[in-house]
C-alpha cells in the first residue's frame, strides 16, 4: 500500500511535525503566496537573497502534511545555493513528480526523493509541488511580492 507507506515515513512526518524552516524572516528580499484553492493549502514563501545566493528562507501558512513537508525539504536543499541551482532542483523535482526523473536526479533531491511515489497519487501532486512552483515563479518572474496561482498545466496529473 504505497500511500500508507508514504505517510508512515518518518522523514515526511518529521518535516511536517517539526519543520526546520517554518516562520518568517526579518528582512526577506522576496515574498510570494502560493495557494491550491481546491485544497485550501496556502503558503507564504520568503527568501533572503544576497548577490544571487539564497542566504535564508522560510515558509508560513497552512496546508496538508505533503505540502508542508515538501516545502520544508525544499528549503533544506536550496538555502546556500544560487538561483540557478535552486531552479535546477525545482526542475528535477517536477520531473520526478511526472515520473520522468533519473535515479541520479532523485538522489540529488536528497530527502525530497521520498515523494517520488506521489506520481501514483495524482490528487496529491498539487500539494507536493506547491512550494516548488511558488519558488520557480519567484525566480522566473523575479518578483519581490505576489501570488502564485494554481497552475493547471503543471498539475495536469493532479486534477
Amino acid at each position: 500500500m504505497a500511500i500508507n507507506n508514504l505517510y508512515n515515513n518518518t522523514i515526511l512526518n518529521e518535516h511536517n511535525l517539526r519543520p526546520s524552516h517554518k516562520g518568517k524572516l526579518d528582512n526577506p528580499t522576496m515574498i510570494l503566496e502560493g495557494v491550491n484553492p481546491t485544497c485550501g493549502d496556502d503558503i507564504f514563501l520568503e527568501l533572503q537573497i544576497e548577490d544571487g545566493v539564497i542566504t535564508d528562507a522560510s515558509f508560513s501558512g497552512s496546508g496538508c502534511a505533503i505540502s508542508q513537508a515538501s516545502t520544508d525539504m525544499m528549503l533544506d536543499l536550496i538555502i546556500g545555493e544560487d538561483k540557478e541551482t535552486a531552479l535546477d532542483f525545482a526542475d528535477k523535482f517536477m520531473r520526478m513528480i511526472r515520473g520522468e526523473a533519473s535515479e541520479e536526479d532523485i538522489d540529488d533531491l536528497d530527502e525530497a526523493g521520498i515523494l517520488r511515489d506521489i506520481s501514483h497519487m495524482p490528487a496529491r501532486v498539487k500539494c507536493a509541488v506547491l512550494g516548488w512552483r511558488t519558488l520557480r515563479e519567484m525566480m522566473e518572474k523575479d518578483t519581490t511580492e505576489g501570488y502564485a496561482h494554481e497552475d493547471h498545466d503543471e498539475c495536469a496529473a493532479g486534477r
Partner: protein
Amino acid sequence: MKENQFRKDFPIFAETGVTYLDSAATSQRPQVVIDAEREFNEKMNANPLRGLYGISIEATDAYENARETVKEFIGADSAREIIFTRNASESLNLVAYSYACSVLKPGDTVLTTIMEHHSNILPWRMAAERTGARVEYLEPEHDGTFTDAELQKKIVKGVKIVAVGHVSNVLGCINPVKKISDMAHAVGAVTVVDAAQSAPHMKVDVKELGADFLVFSGHKLMAPFGIGVLYGRRELLEEMPPFLRGGEMIEYVTHDTEKWAELPHKFEAGTVNATGAYGLDRAIKYLKNVGFDFIRETEDRLTSIIFEEAATLPYFHILGSDDPKNHNGIVSFTIDGVHPHDISSILDGDKICIRAGHHCAQPLLEYLGESSTARASLYLYNTEEDVRFFMDKVKNIRGIMGYGN
C-alpha cells in the same frame, strides 16, 4: 450485524471493493438504473419530441413518463411544473437568470443562508449584481439551527426571494423550510428550496414545504449524471421568460418573431437528455421500493455508530449537532493535527472513500472558523461493516502521521 438487502443491487461494491462514504457528493447507481440506460440505447434510442415514428415515440414516452414520476415524487400539481435540467446548479441558475433577473429591483433583497452550497449563493449574487439588489444571509447557531430572532430580523419587507437549503451538505441538519416559507410568503417573497441533499433521503413535498421553486440533482439520487430537476409553481413559470433558447422551446419562429412553446418545453432548449430522465425514473422507482423508512433507519443507526466510536477519541471532532439523528447521514469532522486531505489520502489506502475540503460551502466554513474538513456521508447501501471499518482505520491515522497515542 444486520444485513443490508439492497447493497447487492449496486455492482460497484463487488467490482471495486470500496467502502463508499461520499454519497453526499454523488450516489452509486443500482443495477436497474445502469440497465435502464443500456435498454434505452438498445431499444428506443431516438430524438424524443420530434419524430413521428415508433422508437421516437417510445423515447418521448420514456422521457415524459419520467416527468410524471418526478411530479408524483415531489407532490407537484402538474407535470408541466417539472423542468429537466442538467443538475441542481443549472436549475438554480435558471431561476436566477429567468426569474430573479426579471423581478428584482434596486434595493430588493435575496435572502439565503450562510450554510448554502455555492450553487445556492453565486447565482443570487449574479442576479443581485445585475439588478442592483443585494444578497443577505441567515446565520445559524453552531449546531445549524436558526433562532426565531434571526429569522424575524431578516425575513422582512423588501426581501423578494428566500433561497434555502433543505439539508446542509456539511452539517447534515434539516432547515425549517416550512416555517421560513410561511414567513417569506407573509412578506411577499417567493421561496427557492435546494433539495439536493434532502430529496434522496426523505419525503420532499413541494406543498408541505411551501416551495415556490425546488431543485435537486439526479446523480445524488442514484440516477445518472447529467439530469437535474427544477420544480416551479405554474403561475411563476408561465410568467418567466425562457432561459436557454433554441430547438424545441418554441412554437414557431419566423424571420422576425418567435413564440415560446408551452410549459415545460419553454425551458428545455435543444435535444433533451432522455436517457438521463429514463434513468431518473428508474432511480425514483427503486428509491420508493426501498422506502424512506429504511433509509432513515439505516442512516441513523450507522451515524450513531460513528458518534459512539468518536466519543472515545478525544482528537476527533464532529461539526454540527450532537445528536446523530440530526445529521441525515452526513458527518463532517476534523482530527487534531491532521489536515483533512491527509485524512482522506490515508483512508484511500484502505479503499475508504470520504470527502475532504470545503465541500463547496466556503462561507459556512469561514463562518465556523474552519478552512477545510473531512466528511463521511451515508446512503441506503451502507452497512455497519462500512462504518466500523472506517472508524477502525480512523483510529490509526494519528499514529501514521507520527503522533503518539
